[in-house]
Every structure is written in structure tokens, then in C-alpha cells.
């Protein structure tokens, strides 16, 4: 009697041989385009990695939104200064580049920092940002260089950086939330570069570096569970995939006592409204655009009381997606001509809409039409400022299009905020400040930096710069890994 394994292997070899003439070039082109698009999209939705050419210190003034809302505002780049490269393995005091003349240490794998004074965490307030540098040299030979630094760095609203604590080198740690004045942060952690195990929730003691596991108790199915944000009543929102690629997920509430309750389902992307009551998400399977897949309706999930209501985008014949929340009950959406061949771009006749949603009905009002050669809003990239303004990323058109920058919808028009080069994305808008993470390329996970744009004062401050090359490291693959703004309700939700 023949062995089944032998038969299966023979059958595979036979079938492979019969398919040997399959053309691979068009397959490679198509797959590469789609992967580029997805990778660019993914970078808009999660904290990216890191390549450095320069480090940016200090503040620059930006005379954008608050200067004159009636006039077009130019995109402004912060002042850039070149730091002194340092290959020294030991702390080397250098003069501060800031106006306060504080002596900064240049340590391998970190931007210029200073030791954190005792009690500083407890004194932090709005606008302070916690960051983690997970610094790794680039590899050009296929090897996997070890981490040089894995350190929590606290940044003041004016860009002063303080070393808080070192973290284990064998664990990936992502900041989920941190409140001003607190000496702990909620993080997710996993074994470094192993996504199969999923992330686990933990509380990080910022004074000791100790991480205490506080499992959410949800399945790791689909790589989750993933943190969504904090609901209006303080409960944490988590999702776990109901498909292995998390195209569909269940949303759960985790309260302070650790109990977890199912609140509803959601599609691949979602944004929490500024009040923490409503989670807008896309509905799978109704024909549409976001990834060139079947999505063309949205749903509002009440994450406090439960219950979900579906809406359409109110623009018949167009493919639409959410950009962000304007205010509770009103969304910024972008609609364009539907694709003809199933590919997700180039989104002709892209138009920005205000979509009012209430009582099971929706109404779209046209706000702005984008020229076909003009970067248009990136779906699901918006961060609400809470006063009707929305900061969002813009993207170039075409299969190989990257991010183009960041704009703010101020109620009347879209105003450029930052020219992002190849990639720039908004991750938070807290207290009138828009936080933008940017990288020089969207085609690879390169170093990013973090800039805070204060819309009231018009100033821009680089909070977390890219790492500068040193005598020992010509290029960094990863530097800034993750960050959390004090009191931010909801980081962007990615797939």
C-alpha cells in the first residue's frame, strides 16, 4: 500500500512541473505594487522604525494656522542643526544645543539626552511625551546586528530629553498609554521580532524598568490582541482578530479591575472619536476601496454602552473612506472614482467631504476637490483636535505613491502643516498640538523623527530626532520605536 506522504509529494512535484511555464513577471509587478501600498499604509498607522542623516534639536517657529486663517500657509520645516557624531561607548558630556546650556550626554544609540532628575516624572504635565529608542545599526550583509540601546526617554514640550530607564534587549516594548505625573506606563511587549506570539499587556514601572504582566485575557489569534484606546468612562479598548489577518475583529472593554467584556465587532481600521464614545470603523464586504478590497460602508460602535449602527458615505457612485473625526457625529471623509481593475489607487477626482451621521442616516457635504496630480488625504490618518479641526496625512497618487505631508482641516480649508518628504503621518493631536512622525522613505522601515506642532503658538519642536551616524555606525536601521503623549486617548489603530 502506497504511503500518503509519498503520493502527496509526488503530486506536488508533478503539478509544479506542469505549472513551470506560468509567467511570473506580471505577478511580481502586481504583488510588489500592492505590498508597497500596504507598507506605506501600515506606516501611517503604527509607530515605525528608523535612517538617520541628521538630528534636529531645539525649536522652530511656524507661522501657520494661527497667523492668518484667510491666507494660504506655507509648509515650514523646523530649524536643523548638525550634532557632533559620537562613537564613544561611554557617556561624553557635550554642550547643550538648547538655549538653557544644559550639558547633554551623547550615548550610543540615543540622541543627546540628560539624566532624569529625581521626581521629574511626578512633575510632568500636558505636552510631555514618553518615547522608547530601540536602536539598531543597519545591516548590509543580511545579518541581524544586536540592539545598541533600548531606553525610555522622557521629552518635555520644549524638546528637553531625559533618560528614564533601560529596558531588556530581548523584548519589544510598545507604549500604549501614559498619564502626566505617573511613574508607570501601560505597554505591550513581545519577544523581539516575533509577531506570532502576539503582544501582551504589561505595566512598566518607569523608576525601575520592571514590567508586570497584566494580560488582557484575549486570544492571540491574528497577532493580537491590539490596543485601541481609552473609552469615555476610562475603560481600555482592545481588539482581537476574528480572521487570521485581523480584517475583522471583536472589540472588548477592559476595566480597571481587569475584567473584559465584548462590546462589538469592527473592520480592519477604526478611529475613536475625541470623546471616547464612538469607534468609527469600516464594514467588511460591501464593495469599496480602502485596500482595493470590499469595504464601502462604515459603522459607529458605541464603546461605552454597546450597539453598532451602519451608515453609507452618502456619495453614490464613489469609493469613500474615513479620514478622521471632526467632532462627535461628524466625520471627514474622502471619496474618489471607483477603481476599474481592483487596484486601490490612483483615486481620481478625490474630494473631501464632511459626513454628518445621526439617527441611522448620513449626509455628505463637499468641502474640497483635489486636483488629480495633487496629494490627497490618506484614509484613516486623521487625528481630531477636539475643536473641529482635523490633522491628517496626505499621499501621492499612483501605485508607488508615498506620503506627501500633513495638512490640517481648519473648518474652512486644508492648510499644510508639514512637508513630510516621502512619509509623514499624524499620530496624535492633544491639547492643540499635532504630533507628526516622519521618515525619509516609505519603501522601507527607516528611522523616524517626531515633531510637535503647536497650532496656537505656531512653533514646531522636534521632540525625538533621528539618530546621527557615528564612527561605529554608518546608518541606523531603527531608532525611535514608540511614543505616547501624556493623556492621549487613542493612538491610531493599524492592521
Amino acid at each position: 500500500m502506497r504511503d500518503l506522504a509519498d503520493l502527496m509529494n509526488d503530486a506536488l512535484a508533478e503539478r509544479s512541473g506542469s505549472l513551470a511555464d506560468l509567467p511570473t513577471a506580471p505577478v511580481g509587478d502586481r504583488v510588489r505594487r500592492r505590498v508597497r501600498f500596504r507598507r506605506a499604509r501600515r506606516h501611517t498607522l503604527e509607530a515605525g522604525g528608523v535612517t538617520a542623516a541628521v538630528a534636529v534639536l531645539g525649536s522652530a517657529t511656524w507661522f501657520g494656522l494661527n497667523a492668518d486663517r484667510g491666507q494660504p500657509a506655507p509648509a515650514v520645516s523646523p530649524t536643523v542643526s548638525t550634532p557632533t557624531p559620537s562613537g564613544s561607548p561611554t557617556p561624553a558630556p557635550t554642550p547643550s544645543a538648547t538655549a538653557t546650556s544644559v550639558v547633554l550626554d551623547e550615548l550610543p544609540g540615543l540622541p543627546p539626552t540628560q539624566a532624569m532628575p529625581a521626581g521629574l516624572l511626578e512633575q510632568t504635565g500636558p505636552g510631555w511625551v514618553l518615547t522608547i529608542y530601540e536602536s539598531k545599526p543597519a545591516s548590509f550583509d543580511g545579518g541581524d546586528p544586536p540592539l545598541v540601546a533600548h531606553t525610555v526617554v522622557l521629552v518635555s514640550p520644549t524638546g528637553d530629553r531625559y533618560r528614564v530607564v533601560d529596558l531588556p534587549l530581548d523584548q519589544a516594548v510598545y507604549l500604549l498609554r501614559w498619564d502626566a505625573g505617573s511613574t508607570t506606563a501601560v505597554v505591550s511587549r513581545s519577544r523581539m521580532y516575533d509577531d506570532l506570539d502576539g503582544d501582551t499587556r504589561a505595566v512598566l514601572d518607569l523608576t525601575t524598568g520592571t514590567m508586570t504582566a497584566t494580560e488582557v485575557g484575549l486570544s492571540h489569534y491574528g497577532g493580537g490582541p491590539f490596543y485601541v484606546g481609552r473609552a469615555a468612562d476610562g475603560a481600555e479598548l482592545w481588539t482581537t482578530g476574528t480572521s487570521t489577518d485581523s480584517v475583522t475583529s471583536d472589540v472588548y472593554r477592559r476595566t480597571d479591575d481587569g475584567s473584559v467584556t465584548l462590546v462589538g465587532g469592527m473592520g480592519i481600521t477604526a478611529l475613536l472619536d475625541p470623546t471616547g464614545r464612538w469607534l468609527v470603523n469600516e464594514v467588511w464586504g460591501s464593495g469599496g476601496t480602502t485596500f482595493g478590497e470590499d469595504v464601502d460602508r462604515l459603522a459607529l460602535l458605541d464603546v461605552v454602552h454597546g450597539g453598532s449602527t451602519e451608515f453609507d458615505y452618502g456619495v453614490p457612485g464613489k469609493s469613500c473612506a474615513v479620514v478622521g473625526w471632526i467632532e462627535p457625529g461628524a466625520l471627514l471623509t474622502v471619496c474618489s472614482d471607483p477603481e476599474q481593475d481592483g487596484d486601490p489607487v490612483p483615486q481620481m477626482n478625490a474630494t473631501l467631504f464632511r459626513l454628518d451621521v445621526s439617527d441611522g442616516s448620513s449626509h455628505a457635504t463637499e468641502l474640497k476637490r483635489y486636483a488629480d496630480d495633487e496629494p490627497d488625504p490618506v484614509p484613516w490618518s486623521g487625528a481630531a483636535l477636539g475643536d473641529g479641526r482635523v490633522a491628517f496625512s496626505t499621499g501621492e497618487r499612483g501605485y508607488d505613491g508615498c506620503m506627501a505631508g500633513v495638512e490640517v482641516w481648519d473648518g474652512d480649508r486644508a492648510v499644510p502643516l508639514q512637508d513630510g518628504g516621502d512619509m509623514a503621518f499624524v499620530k496624535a493631536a492633544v491639547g492643540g498640538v499635532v504630533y507628526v512622525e516622519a521618515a525619509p522613505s516609505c519603501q522601507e522601515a527607516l528611522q523616524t523623527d517626531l515633531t510637535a506642532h503647536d497650532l496656537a503658538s505656531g512653533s514646531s519642536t522636534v521632540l525625538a530626532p533621528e539618530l546621527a551616524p557615528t564612527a561605529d555606525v554608518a546608518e541606523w536601521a531603527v531608532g525611535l520605536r514608540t511614543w505616547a503623549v501624556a493623556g492621549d486617548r487613542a493612538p491610531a489603530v493599524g492592521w
Partner: protein
Amino acid sequence: MSRWEPVLEQVVQERYPQLVARAMLLCSSRTDAEDLVQDALISTFSGRARFSTVAEAEQYVRRAIVSRFIDGTRRRGRERALAEQVAQMPLVTVSTSGTVAERLEAALAQLSPRQRACVVLRYLDDVPVHETAELLGLSDGSVKRYTADGIRALNALLGTQATVNDYTVRVVTPQRSVHGA
């Protein structure tokens, strides 16, 4: 060119027919199999995993093929219907006149999607039970059951014998045993 692109290019150039052949074990239509492989490639290279070799990437793609196959049936709400349909159908004798590949594909087509997925992962790729369960969103026990049922049916249809977990599955009397999804 980004660092992932040469690996993707090499996987497509060198392994595409083999990957499509593998996908045809799950969905016997070549067109569907090609769609499945391309979806798996996109999913694999869009993710956070990093690959330094073609073999490493191919292993991910192989698993993505199976998980996306299951996801596809799950999304379309077809899985339960297919499982119920399969459970009610008597096994149809596989013609001995076709090629080995045709015979195997015809036999696999008579299994439920989950049985097919479990057989491919567990029996062909030797993926551990728990890992298979995580990949497909099933319990460990379900994976063992689907694998055993699938292999039992294949043995009945193809006149083969198989060894799973150090014991030999030998089928004397063809009989349908399909658990609902």
C-alpha cells in the same frame, strides 16, 4: 530598491509554480489558487516579519496560503455550508486514470476546508499541532480531529496509508466522518 523587494522578487521567480501547486491542494481551480498565492505574498511581505532568505519567506507564504484560504471561506460565510455539504455527501471514488496530482486534488476536494487546511499544514508541512491551531484559529483538539479525519478520507479515496503521530492510519472501509465547522 528596498530590502524586502529582492526577496519577494526571488520568491516569485523561483517558487511561484510550487506555491500555486500547493494552493491547488486547497482550491483545485488554478485561477483561485493563483489569487490565493498572490494574496498570501501580499500579506506576508506587508507584515512586520523580516526575512533574510527565500526559504524563510517561502515558509511564511506557505502558511499564509492556508490561513488565507480558511479566512476566505470564513469571510464569505461559506465554511459551515461547505462543511455541512461535505458531511452529507458520500465519498466519490477517485478515478485511477488521471495523473497523481489530479487524483490527489480530486480527493482533497471532497474534504471540508478545515480538513484540507489541517492535512496540508500538519501532514505535508509538519507544522506542530498548537501552531496549526493558532494559525487557523482552532483548538488543538480540533486540529487533531480534522487532520485524522482528513487523512482517513484520503486513504480511503486513494488507497494509501499514512502515519500520524507515530501510529499508522489504515482504512479498511471507506466512510464519511466530517465534523461541522
